[in-house]
């Protein structure tokens, strides 16, 4: 077990605890004001509001700005403290079920007993990172990777999370694989998971679609969300070789038209798709 990491990988948060009088419409109004100042989640209490924001937004001028908020007929006072980042998902992660992705592929934790002699026995120990196979979108892309020809290809996995898809790509024969995630804890975790699967060859980076600049791959995977995929499409287009594949997921069947329109605008042609419940995976080919 790894303990006492010197640098906390999990982002710290600031917590603003406000007493508001009267609660209605005071809470609504204060939440609206704080939302405009970078707070992203709110909890109403019997005496007011507790608001949360990444510690990175904290500054003296932010405090002064909040103190200057005046709402007619509403009084509020507040204090701010820090909530240290930690792995809040640890309870679930300590005891989850393995996921059978296909006849020849399972995703399991180190604490699960190895089942039979599956060709793709993926070991994943998540740390508040996405990609354990419990979500439909992970399974949709994993199944696609199991059937595509990947031997000798270069693969990029955007929003890699636990790194599970990049790890599977290596096991399917891809020779140069990279994974990028915006969260530091995900990048560290992906590296850890690769080692659990005895893979050292994957290049992991913290970042976003700008990390693609100057790089090009045979296969680009992105299981993120609709808006991120739409805004990153121009960069995805430049980062896929002619004839190469773009695998997108993290959205619903209702989002298919807008994503197809965007991909086609940036030089991709629709190849095929797969669906599990309302979740969708789209596969495009880059025009030669």
């Amino acid at each position: 077990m790894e303990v006492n990491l010197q640098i906390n990988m999990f982002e710290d948060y600031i917590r603003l605890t406000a007493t508001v009088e009267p609660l209605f419409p005071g809470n609504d109004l204060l939440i609206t004001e704080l939302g405009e100042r970078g707070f992203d989640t709110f909890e109403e209490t019997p005496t007011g509001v507790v608001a949360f924001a990444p510690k990175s937004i904290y500054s003296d001028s932010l405090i002064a700005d909040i103190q200057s908020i005046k709402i007619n007929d509403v009084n509020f006072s507040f204090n701010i403290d820090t909530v240290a980042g930690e792995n809040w998902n640890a309870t679930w992660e300590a005891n989850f079920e393995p996921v059978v992705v296909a006849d020849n592929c399972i995703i399991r934790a180190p604490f699960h007993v190895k089942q039979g002699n599956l060709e793709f026995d993926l070991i994943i120990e998540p740390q508040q990172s996405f990609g354990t196979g419990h979500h439909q979108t992970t399974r949709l892309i994993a199944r696609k990777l199991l059937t595509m020809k990947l031997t000798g290809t270069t693969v990029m996995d955007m929003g890699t999370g636990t790194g599970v898809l990049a790890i599977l790509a290596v096991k399917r024969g891809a020779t140069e694989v990279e994974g990028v995630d915006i969260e530091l804890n995900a990048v560290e975790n992906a590296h850890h998971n690769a080692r659990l699967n005895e893979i050292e060859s994957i290049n992991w980076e913290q970042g976003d679609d700008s990390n693609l600049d100057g790089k090009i791959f045979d296969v680009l995977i992105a299981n993120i969300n609709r808006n991120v995929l739409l805004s990153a499409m121009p960069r995805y287009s430049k980062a896929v070789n002619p004839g190469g594949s773009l695998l997108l997921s993290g959205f619903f069947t209702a989002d298919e038209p807008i994503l197809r329109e965007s991909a086609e605008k940036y030089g991709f042609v629709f190849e095929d798709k797969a669906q599990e419940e309302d979740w969708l995976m789209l596969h495009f080919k880059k025009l030669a």
Partner: protein
Amino acid sequence: MAKEVSALIKLQIKGGAANPSPPIGPALGAKGVNIMEFCKQFNARTQDRAGKILPVIITVYSDKSFEFIIKHPPVAAQIKELSKVQTGSAESNRKKVGSITWDQVRQIAEVKMPDLNCFTMESAMSMVAGTARSMGITVTGENPLNK
């Protein structure tokens, strides 16, 4: 047999911005829910409302599964959007910083009615208009509530 409810969690989260940090992380994590699953679902369902503050009620069951309902943005946020003011006025009675019409008050009341403890459209509209006044925003046109 109906599943046993182990917790009801009420939060307000910006559309598309759910993440495993507080208060989502501790609230769901302590119940053994897979937080990453909640965040993926919430963010995917709110891509059309990214950045808007959305009240959400999460029901956690004893088997660690969950469901959630997303409500409409708070009345104050809707008024702000319609009146296009950036911040409330410090002296709302003297210096009006924006305005909305009674039609817009009705529009907000209609959208928000299911979430408000109001039995009639008139009382919902009165509540919306009151919130606007607290924000220093004038409601323009003939007041239909005076008819």
